[in-house]
């Protein structure tokens, strides 16, 4: 390229200038869609290399066979058939996988409802009642406090609070509200939901807050001027406009809780089944194809939930 241009320049400088303008106009003719592909390119590559390709491997491995110490790359549905073992034979009793998913979905639903409720009002407070930007920032950072400790520390920290001889129980016994310490405070579904809500409300607060601060304040004034009550403004103006944030926050919370096994394990005393827990046990036993099959099942179910949610709100359009 360079050498030929040099030769050209020596021969006729005018010609070179002409070709430069031609090139410039060619660049201008690059379609906008090409440019946006170019901009999205690096992210797409990362996504491809670290998400899509590994995912394809997971799906492939889920159809492999295995023995005690290695993967056998031969087609086998064993990972799946083992997983659904007894699902028909045991009817009307539920099989392990059905029980596990019912439990996981139940926990997921509870955590979702509670984080949505708390998250919505925290975001509402931050967006409409806190006027200074600095305070808004500072207060939302406060919501990250639960992430400052590790799971093990958190587990150890809950025992003195919720345990049989913990603060809450001894407080309740002293006030005479109960005679004996209650057991369901710790290592129960209650404690699992509590810990998950404690952790993940933050993921609700941030997107909802983000949607709320973008609501044009004049809309709220207009609603007020038109005689709407506070409740009517909330239902007809704020909630519809905060919907994208609500859906994004919900997707965060639901995907995390569906795959969680550490918090459920630690807070549930390892006695509560979770979809992620099955995968962990299989991986630890070096049964990778079975683990991969379970991962694919979990992925499909989570994907279905998210598809349903995005049916309610078209996130792409709203953003």
């Amino acid at each position, binding site marked *: 390229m360079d050498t030929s241009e040099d030769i050209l320049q020596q021969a006729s400088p005018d010609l070179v200038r002409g070709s430069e303008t031609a090139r410039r106009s060619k660049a201008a003719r690059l379609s906008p869609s090409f440019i946006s592909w170019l901009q999205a390119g690096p992210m797409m590559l990362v996504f491809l290399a670290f998400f899509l390709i590994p995912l394809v491997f997971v799906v492939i491995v889920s159809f492999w066979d295995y023995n005690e*110490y290695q993967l056998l790359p031969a087609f086998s549905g064993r990972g799946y058939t083992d997983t659904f073992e007894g699902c028909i034979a045991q009817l009307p009793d539920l099989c*392990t996988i059905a*029980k*596990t998913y019912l439990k996981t979905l139940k926990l997921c639903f509870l955590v979702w409802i509670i984080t949505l409720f708390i998250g919505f009002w925290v975001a509402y407070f931050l967006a409409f009642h806190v006027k200074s930007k600095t305070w808004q920032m500072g207060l939302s950072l406060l919501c990250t406090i639960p992430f400052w400790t590790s799971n*093990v520390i958190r587990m150890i920290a809950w025992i003195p609070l919720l345990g049989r001889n913990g603060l809450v129980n001894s407080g309740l016994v002293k006030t005479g509200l109960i005679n004996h310490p209650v057991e369901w405070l710790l290592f129960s579904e209650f404690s699992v939901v509590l810990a998950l809500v404690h952790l993940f409300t933050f993921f609700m607060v941030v997107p909802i807050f983000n949607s709320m601060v973008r609501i044009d304040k004049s809309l709220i004034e207009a609603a007020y001027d038109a005689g709407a009550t506070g409740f009517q403004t909330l239902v007809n103006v704020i909630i519809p406009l905060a919907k994208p944030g609500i859906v994004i926050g919900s997707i965060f919370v639901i995907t995390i809780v569906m795959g969680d096994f550490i918090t459920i394990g630690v807070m549930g*005393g390892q006695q509560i089944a979770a979809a992620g827990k099955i995968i962990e046990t299989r991986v630890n036993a070096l049964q990778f194809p079975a683990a991969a099959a379970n991962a694919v099942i979990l992925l499909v179910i989570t994907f279905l939930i998210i598809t349903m949610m995005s049916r309610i709100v078209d996130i792409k359009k709203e953003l």
Partner: protein
Amino acid sequence: MTETTRKKGLSRRTLLKSTAGLAGLAAGSGAITGFPYVMSAEPKVLRYLGTAVNEGDDISKQCLKDTGIKIEYITATTDDVTKRVMTQPNSFDVLDTEYFSLKKIVPSGNILALDARKIKEFDNITPVFTKGQTPGGKKIGSQGTAPWKVLYLEGKDSKKFATSATEFVTLIPTVYNADTLGIRPDIIKRPISSWSELLNPEFKGKASILNIPSIGIMDAAMVVEASGKYKYADKGNMTKEEIDLTMKVMTEAKKAGQFRAFWKDFNESVNLMASGETVIQSMWSPAVTKVRSMGIACTFQPLKEGYRSWASGFCVSKGVSGAKLEWAYEFVNWFLSGYAGAYLNRQGYYSAVLSTAKAHMEPYEWAYWMEGKAAEKDIKAPDGSLLEKAGAVRDGGSYEDRMGGVACWNAVMDENDYMVRKWNEFIAA
């Protein structure tokens, strides 16, 4: 140079001195890294993959002092160690793992058997490993993956366990112990003598077992057998029906609310017991010691049905050869030479070579930990903290009594895949 030879004042010696100084300077600055001189000064480093049991900082410091070998610990849980051997065999040099995982590791061909003739103390290794009996001649229970069943390979690159002694050793024994139930005598307030007590409704909501399937099922089997419900041919290698039966008993207990929580981590077990959330649970000896050092009564209760035992040892990755392999032998020989053994004994574990460990312990320490005698003086942990006051006696007594009372060993069963599925079902129930 010409001047040097002419003038007698500048002798050969001075010349050597100055050139050596220059070379030293160059080596120090890292200018000439390719020279053999610098190669020999390269630090001897071994990457050591294992669980936290053997991985004391004091051990690695002492090893560096004695042998010049720097140990880099890679710490993982029992399951993750095995996973790493299978998937990343080049990420470590020395492997410290349990005998029961050999059934998975050896067929994978990712480890190298060590040569018994190069281990100085090999003939002094306790007969627990080589003959399945205590030094005093007591026969040890062989159910499960007992070490003597998997100690030797048929050949250097063989994947088959030899039935009689060969020079190819899968794992050079290091540490082992006899596990049983830990109890809170201050809360239970009556003698406990059987594994069946774990499922006694008296302790409803206050019992716990391990959530590591291959170990948990052994504890469960001890309970089932102790309660007279079934007698296994081999607890460590159950048939599908036996697994079903064992899990059924455990599932009923779980549904009835017998268990407070299952634990997986050393600290979890300590916390459950210390906080009084549980009063009876399967436990490890140092965990009991830790609860006790917090001033809380806790007993590592000997039971009439016997102990569930485990053992671990060293081998090397198949990628290790040459000088590194020699360092590995040097390290293993050092490990068996006494310091590490005494260190492990003082934590309540047992060392593989008893004679060298004894030489590194005070007579009163040996009497307390190994002979089951009352402590003459206060018993201290390796870090110097007080473990037991003078007069205390070790739970379960002497080495002979404890190791002689072993009923079964941690195991990987032939039906392991089925067992893991049933374990998931148990958790979901």
